[in-house]
């Protein structure tokens, strides 16, 4: 994985610390913001995202809950309807499914049915690469991307992790915030000073290139950048677009990039069928067919559960070599 650039002078912050900083700043700025979840108070969260919050904000705003995802998100929905700004932690993104109704049927449909907004954030660690097995490694974003009313965000950098969690908390609609756990302590940034908010719905250009566009998000942004470096030595100039928000997709950024490079490779760690990549491929087919010099290719995990044993998981996950192979195919058109 590419180590992100470090600016001299000010200390850099990890992705997980950046999320913590973002939530903390929002809690200081807005008394309506509170956090709830399993083991987030006394313990500081399974991944330490809320470490020190209990001492700072007290147990009313840092609520340790029963092991009860439906109660956590359900209570967050009710509180949000009352004008609070709850930030609910799911200990792993795999457990978002335990509160599926609360997210997809209560939170997502409330504004449409009754005009009552549900400004809540449900956040948690997703993704593989840490040998967590079938139930601690999933990327469940596509389950939720099919739900109008939700927004879905997944940062790839520490700066975005902070800026997007702040934007998510300020958003008037329900936001699912997927944190890639592989990145928690592996990427860092010197965070921008001041009130750093990254708008939801805007992709970021991570590397400019002429020959093809890799459209990706989360930890795969770094895989794409590593692949681009390899491809450069072979004379293939790849552009990398970090989607950052998966619902709604930044279609204009996607079209702008692919309109220039004329070749598109969609890369995600989630499994293939019905994934975000399929939606992007459809958008490209509908909106920039005339610009395409090659079919849209997908590099994704295969349609299997996430396997546990290291050789199995390494085989399962997309990597630099798989991305390079697909890029060479595209460049050959």
């Amino acid at each position: 994985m590419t180590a992100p650039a470090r600016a001299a002078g000010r200390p850099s912050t990890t992705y997980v610390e950046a999320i913590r900083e973002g939530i903390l700043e929002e809690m200081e700025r807005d008394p309506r913001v509170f956090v709830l979840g399993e083991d987030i108070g006394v313990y500081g969260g399974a991944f330490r995202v809320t470490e020190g919050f209990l001492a700072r904000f007290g147990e009313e705003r840092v609520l340790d809950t029963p092991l009860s995802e439906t109660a956590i998100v359900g209570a967050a929905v009710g509180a949000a309807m009352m004008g609070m700004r709850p930030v609910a932690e799911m200990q792993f993104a795999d457990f978002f499914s335990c509160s599926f109704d609360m997210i997809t049927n209560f939170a997502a449909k409330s504004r449409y049915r009754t005009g009552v907004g549900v400004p809540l954030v449900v956040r948690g660690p997703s993704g593989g690469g840490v040998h967590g097995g079938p139930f601690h490694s999933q990327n469940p974003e596509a389950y939720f991307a099919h739900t109008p009313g939700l927004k879905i965000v997944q940062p790839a950098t520490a700066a975005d992790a902070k800026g997007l969690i702040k934007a998510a908390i300020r958003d008037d609609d329900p936001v699912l915030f997927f944190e890639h756990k592989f990145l928690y302590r592996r990427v860092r940034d010197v965070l921008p000073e001041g009130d750093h908010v990254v708008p939801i719905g805007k992709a970021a250009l991570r590397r400019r290139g002429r020959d093809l566009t890799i459209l990706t998000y989360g930890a795969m942004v770094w895989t794409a950048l590593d692949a681009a470096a390899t491809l450069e030595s072979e004379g293939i100039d790849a552009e990398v677009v970090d989607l950052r928000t998966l619902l709604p997709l930044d279609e204009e950024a996607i079209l702008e990039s692919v309109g220039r490079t004329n070749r598109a490779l969609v890369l995600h760690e989630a499994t293939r069928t019905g994934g975000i990549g399929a939606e992007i491929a459809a958008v490209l087919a509908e909106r920039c067919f005339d610009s395409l010099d090659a079919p849209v290719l997908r590099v994704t995990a295969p349609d299997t559960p996430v396997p546990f044993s290291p050789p199995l998981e390494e085989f399962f996950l997309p990597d630099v070599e798989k991305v390079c192979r697909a890029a060479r195919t595209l460049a050959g058109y």
Partner: protein
Amino acid sequence: MADPTREQRIAVYRHMRTTRLVEEKLVHLYRQGKIVGGLYRCLGQEATAVGSAFALSKGDILGPLIRNLGSVLVMGFTPRDVFAQHMGKASAPSGGKDGNLHLGTPEQGVVSAISMLGALVPVMAGIALAARMQRRPIVAMTYIGDGGTSTGPFHEGMNFAGVERLPLVVVAENNGWAYSTPFRKQTAARSLADRATAYGVPADSVDGNDVLAVYEACRRAVDRARRGEGPTLVEAKTYRMKGHAEHDNQEYVPKQELEAWIRRDPIEAFARALLESGLATRQDLAAIDREASVLVERDADLADKSPFPAPERALEGVYAVASETPSEVAAGRAAS
């Protein structure tokens, strides 16, 4: 009102009677094909709905289910709202976006249910949690049927409310049937009140067809919640006099059982009590019935004559910022 005044008792009677008349009108409209979708009735359960909602005070928030027409009327929605909602009209509280009794906002004192039963319990716990954080001395109340108590969300919501000692009252309406499934197939527990024990939540069990008994039990629970002493489950034993919805002829229900409950009609029982106690005369009640009937006919007519929503409104209101609604982008693209 530990001991309701005459005026309050008359108001309770008026709401129960209005509930019955609205429902009869809904059935009429359903047969005329003017009701969109199914019609879920509450015949025989009016006392549970009205008695419980009457136990609330201004500012309290209620989460009603589809058989709580009476509660919705007590909370201030009009028969016209209810008719428009069932007809899918633009003037409906949901603007035609949702049907039946899925209506209301916390500001109006009502949280709109979703059809996934049990889901309101954790959400109403969150309403109570937020109110406590906001230092608002209000109580949240919601309902669950005998079927709904078998769901995970019911369990999770009750458990959370118990742990947090939230100001929540859950009225468990035991009407004997969840669609075609009888109580004995729903739980091995003897009563719904027994379920509360598992959450460390006190429970009360009342005759759900006795409106004052429902009111008094709910009032005790509401007072307890407001004092900061935590949630209560109030089991109201009543009976679903009709099928799950109008299409269902409830042939699975034993006739004798149904006949026994017909003799226990909650509105007739309360009318008798008012007459016997001398608080009302037959003429008084007849006048109330007439007024309610006029109101119901007028409101049904107003709703019937009001327009359907403009079709393109289907795209509105998904997100706070209209331009963020992806479907609008898609529609714009298709049109261009």
